[in-house]
């Protein structure tokens, strides 16, 4: 046999083998270079369903791509399923918030289980989400949906009446957030009647809930066949600004309790596959209150921090867990022991504290700190700073890694108020 013949044969063999185990395409719904990279690294055939503006980029780099406008829902929405099915896709993975129900609808069709779609809707309506949690016996705050400002006013007053506040007392805050927006987009804390006027009309309908005291943190649970296969706990130093992975020992010691709560949530929401990103409040007396949950890649660079701390790609993990065909052995081999990490990986998201930026100033002491790993900021062209939406559009991120969680906490805290932009 000629040498190139051997090579050809082995190629055929490989292709055949692939054909047996992974005959289908995975549809990545949304746009994330990291997720595409993970799919490519795993040698999985995939197609990206993304906003049409990425089409030329995908074409340039030979990425199989279907352009889709996620905001448009009509009879032809069915076309996406048909198109993907024809291409050989059997699995959809949501990458960002607005794609969750699209992926849910696609998976419902792929798996011929209509309820998969309904479950995904549960994750897209914060009111429904809370109610479901409450019905399932999960501890939540008092909440209600509001259609207008009068509803908000009444809720603010009723909650404070229940707290036995008297005329003239400072009111306890309530929180409002649009039902279907990612993370902190549109989130406001309101503790005066005047404050209600700041709500935009477009934010209605929205969810109102009573204020929960305690330490807020998030989990990233990788779920397969309804079971949490790996649970990461992310400690927030300041919500939307800084966090690190894994959580400090004080929070990590609650891990068994947290694991139990997350599994309970997974059961209640009948989540079978993928990644979920719930947020909890740990009250001083040690009880866990459920905040909310999303089924997508979390913000705050958490996936990158998980990779740095635990050494596995969270994007790959998401793909693995989203696929019903993934075997137990594959999962076992993939996930490490959650108590087994190299150190703490943290990041600080920098947003200019000013309206107009001219210069960037990264102090030498920061760059020389042994925990400092890298940052991604460059001196900006002069310009007006855009108003912040949710906790998005930060100007840059500083990454840290170190062995001591207290030092990490202090370091991040120290630079939180620092003016990197002038």
């Amino acid at each position, binding site marked *: 046999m000629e040498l190139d013949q051997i090579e050809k044969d082995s190629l055929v063999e490989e292709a055949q083998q692939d054909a047996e185990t992974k005959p289908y395409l995975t549809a990545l719904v949304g746009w994330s*270079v*990291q997720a*595409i*990279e993970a799919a*490519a690294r795993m040698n999985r055939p995939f197609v990206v369903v993304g906003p049409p503006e990425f089409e030329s*980029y*995908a074409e*340039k*780099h*030979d*990425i199989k791509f279907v352009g889709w406008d996620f905001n448009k829902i009509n009879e032809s929405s069915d076309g996406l399923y048909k198109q993907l099915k024809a291409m050989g896709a059997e699995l959809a993975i949501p990458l960002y918030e607005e794609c969750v129900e699209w992926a849910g609808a696609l998976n419902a069709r792929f798996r011929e289980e209509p309820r998969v779609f309904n479950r995904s809707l549960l994750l897209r309506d914060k009111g429904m989400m809370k109610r479901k949690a409450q019905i399932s016996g999960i501890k939540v705050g008092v909440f209600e949906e509001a259609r207008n400002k009068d509803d908000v006013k009444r809720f603010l007053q009723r909650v404070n009446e229940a707290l036995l506040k008297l005329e003239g007392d400072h009111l306890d805050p309530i929180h409002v957030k649009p039902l279907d927006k990612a993370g902190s987009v549109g989130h406001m804390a309101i503790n005066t009647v005047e404050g209600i006027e700041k709500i935009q009309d477009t934010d209605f309908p929205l969810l109102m809930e009573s204020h929960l005291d305690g330490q807020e943190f998030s989990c990233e649970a990788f779920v397969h066949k309804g079971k949490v296969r790996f649970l990461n706990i992310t400690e927030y130093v300041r919500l939307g600004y800084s966090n690190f992975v894994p959580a400090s020992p004080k929070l990590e010691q609650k891990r068994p309790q947290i694991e139990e709560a997350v599994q309970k949530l997974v059961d209640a929401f009948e989540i079978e596959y993928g990644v979920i990103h719930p947020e909890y409040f740990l009250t001083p007396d040690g009880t866990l209150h459920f905040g909310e949950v999303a089924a997508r890649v979390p913000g705050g660079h958490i996936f990158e921090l998980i990779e740095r701390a635990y050494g596995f790609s969270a994007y790959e993990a998401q793909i693995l867990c989203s696929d019903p065909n993934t075997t137990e052995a594959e999962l076992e081999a993939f996930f490490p022991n959650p108590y087994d990490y190299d150190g703490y990986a943290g990041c600080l998201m920098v947003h200019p504290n000013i309206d107009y930026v001219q*210069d*960037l100033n990264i102090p*030498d002491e920061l*760059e*020389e700190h042994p925990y400092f790993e*890298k*940052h*991604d900021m*460059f*001196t*900006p*062209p*002069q310009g007006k700073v855009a108003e912040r939406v949710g906790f998005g559009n930060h100007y840059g991120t500083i990454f840290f890694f170190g062995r001591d969680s207290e030092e990490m906490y202090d370091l991040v805290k120290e630079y939180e108020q620092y003016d990197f932009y002038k």
Partner: protein
Amino acid sequence: MPQPTGVIVERFAQSLEDLEKAPSFAKSKYQTDVYQEANRLIDAENGLNHLYQYAYRFEETGVFQDSAWEQANKLQPPLVAGSLKAKGLPMVIEVLSELRMLAIAENKYTHPTVSAEDAEEFLNEVMVLNLNLLFPAATESTRIEKHENDDKISKLFQFLISHLSSKALIKTLIHEIERLTAQRPIMIKRIVSMIGTAKRMLDSDSDGDDHAELKKYIAAIEGPSPMSAKYKDIPTYRKELKELSRSELISESVALAKSMRETGLVAPHHATIIRFLCKHHPGLLVYTLNLSSKGSANLEENMELVQQVIKASIFPATKQAIYGLALMLERGVLSHSPVAPGLRRLVELDIRADVRNALHETVQQGEGLTANSILVAGTIQVLGQPLGVGQGFNPTCQAARGISLWAQHAPGFLLEIIPRAARDGDLDFTFEGATIHSKDLSGGLAPDLDMELDPVSLVLVPHLDKIYSEMMSRVALRGEDGHRWVNPAFYGNWVPKGFSTVTNPISGFVQDYSGFVRLFYATHHPEYNDDYELIYPNPVGIFITNVHGKMLGLHAVSIIRIAKDPSGVERVYFYNPNNDGSQNWGQNIVPSVAGNGEEEGESSLPFHEFTSRLYAFHYNPYEQGEAYAVDASEVNDVLNLAKESWGKDYTWV
């Protein structure tokens, strides 16, 4: 304590490694780290050298992927400075891109589209364009405009120079100086500053003995004759002149004049000797100006006036006017009857305070000149070098074109409007029966005029600009290109009334392009236009395109003449008021300024290439030739050039 360079180099190498491994679609994720570490290295001790060790890998690893620097063969030297001065990321990538070019130039690797010679040429060009960054001159203006990246840029350039041959660099520099002087601009500040920096380069270059060409230019502004080279100090030179014999004065004059005629540059000594001769040996002036028989006849005829003018306006600070004076005499302008009284009027004109101040700004302080001296000197320059009028940094090509046209064909009119503007602060033009006064207008194309202009332009452009704009706005709603009416009214009756444009002014579409092309051939090309010669400059509109043929905007030039060049190619010779008449317009269309039969100040292109950039022109409806006879393949060539360049920005119907 800054981090040791070694650590950063290691991190840079690692980040480059990661980038290399990344699939093409994910490069952007890894580029940031490379740029970050590169940024640190640029600041670090010996950092450029370290970066350069990796430069041959930049492109294949994907450092430039999906950025403006991706395709090395499309990069343009004139854009480099802007990126280098920009804050943050562009500066970093630009530095990396220069190092890549250097790696190609030094054959560290073979690039698919850029040869080592191309790369070296690119870098030389970058250097020449940025000599002020390379050798920061200690002037007030550079001090004020000191930029925070200056140190980094200067470090980069020093690094590049240490790798490039200074010979090639000086050669490029000489070429650039030649290119600019060939156009004989009135404003020579840029040329002088280039010569100055080149001189400094020669000084720092030990084996620079074969730079005779460059030395010629240096001498031209510092002292090109034996006497002026010996006595650089002007007062000493003046004293020494008195000791010279007649024949020595002649040979000194001849040497100075020869240099002036060759370079278009005048040494300050020249002004000293011409004043000296004017007083003591007026008969020798003909040598100082190196006049032809026509010029000397004109000098003799007007000797008294010339002496007056020299006394009133030629000083070391206005030395360039000597060149203008020589050319003015050659052109016989003084024989026009209104010119002599017009010039005399300027000598005594009561100039307005604001104009006086603006004129004084054009010379250095402490020269002791009157505003009238400056204005007379400037007028002589414009009359002598009508094609040397430039628009400077202003979008006022129309005004410059007007001054140039009047200086050529209506010096009396020009000498009428200069005092109107300088004394009265007003110009009035009649447009379709109505009088337009510039003093009643505001705005114009250049409300904040850049003052880097010759004295006449300085006086006239603010008025002309407003009047032209006003005329254009009066015809704006007529559904036809307003230049049709405005050009004849503004420039005068020398502009023919027939007018044709490429686009339909209402739809904005390109309509009947071949008809447009054929009409231009039939009215301008000597083979088809029944031998009607072009008598007055034709103000035409052109599309300005960049080196890739991409449309940048519209521009006004004037066709001066159409003739066969020495090799028999029919060419359009034209005046470009931007004083940089040989910019690359893409598609291998590069106007030349010398070597193809151009007179001083002219640019030229082969007829069909010029036509392919034409946007609008005037013609005499009674002087049309054979439009149908124009070769279809020639029309087609023009059509293709047009469609592939500015035509991409238009709808064709």
